[in-house]
């Protein structure tokens, strides 16, 4: 399933990804100290591992939408918009 339903357990990571996408200061903060930023944001161990995996298949199977995945894969770690 390339374009799955956003599973409820992913809500916090969806919000995190949205913040990465829409808030340049937050994105820069994440890029300079990803672990600290995710902990401050309140992501659980499991959620942080999903983000850090940068693995689109894993993220999709976990229930993230492609846009949250893209915001994490391409904007959090690669410093440019979609």
């Amino acid at each position, binding site marked *: 399933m*390339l374009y*799955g339903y*956003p599973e409820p357990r992913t809500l916090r990571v*969806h919000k995190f990804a*949205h913040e990465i996408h829409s808030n340049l200061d937050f994105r820069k903060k994440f890029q300079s100290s990803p672990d600290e930023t995710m902990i401050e944001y309140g992501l659980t161990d499991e959620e942080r591992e999903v983000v850090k995996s940068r693995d*689109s298949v894993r993220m999709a199977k976990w229930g993230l939408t*492609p846009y949250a995945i*893209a915001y994490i894969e391409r904007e959090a770690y690669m410093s440019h918009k979609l």
Partner: protein
Amino acid sequence: MAEIVGAFTFSHAPQILTEPDFGPEYKNQLKKIHEGLMEVGNRISKASPDVVLLLGSDHLESFFLQNYPQLLIFAGDEISGTYSGYTLKLKGHADFARDLLFNLVGSGFDLSFSQEMSLDHPYISPMAWVTKTTPDSLRFIPFHINSNVAPKVNPSRCLELGRAIRRFLDGYNKVERVVILGTGGLSHFPGTPRYGTVDGEADRAVMDIVAEGRCTKLADFSDEWLDDRGEFEIRTWMTVAGAVGNVPGEILAYQKTWHCGMCVASYDVQHAN
């Protein structure tokens, strides 16, 4: 009776606006898309519409998971949004939007509406170019058709929505001239392992249908086919097809970039009215 005096569909990839440096070939590809979009603006200007219906699809930007609409019409007086440092401001047409909203709800389409929302890249990216060649006085009604977040609007429902819009226009006499635009497509796979591939064969199938004047056939593609081929965003094209019917189309530009098949299409609406 309000007449459809222009109909166009085109891609809305963010890169159309952000113009990342992916080399000279890519730059040239974007230039051709920009020229196509500005030609759309020229044609809109010549058509001199009272209002422009602007069909797009949110990507979890304008809307989020606290309340995600399948169909939503903007019914306010003005709207704006900023993407990648570029701000687009559009005049709305609240009276027309309200009348269309009531009509569509009355005919079975349970639209949401907004009088305050922010535009994002599905509108800003292409319209930054289209509006370079349109007058500032032009009035727009953004209209969200969920093409990106599962479950998406059923293709046949997109077509029927266009037909319902057409029936409304046929019986409406408060404006005379309407242009309808659809943004999205063609093949691309954002946020998936297939990002960076483009299904050129599927793009050709879509463009052939448009060029051959069979655009209502776009709604025959299944949800699964659209996802598998990266063509899920042509739902807005289906709604345009429902509004104009099977009129001849013209591909003003097509570029198969490394990440997205980008296309600009025009419809011969002389045959639509």
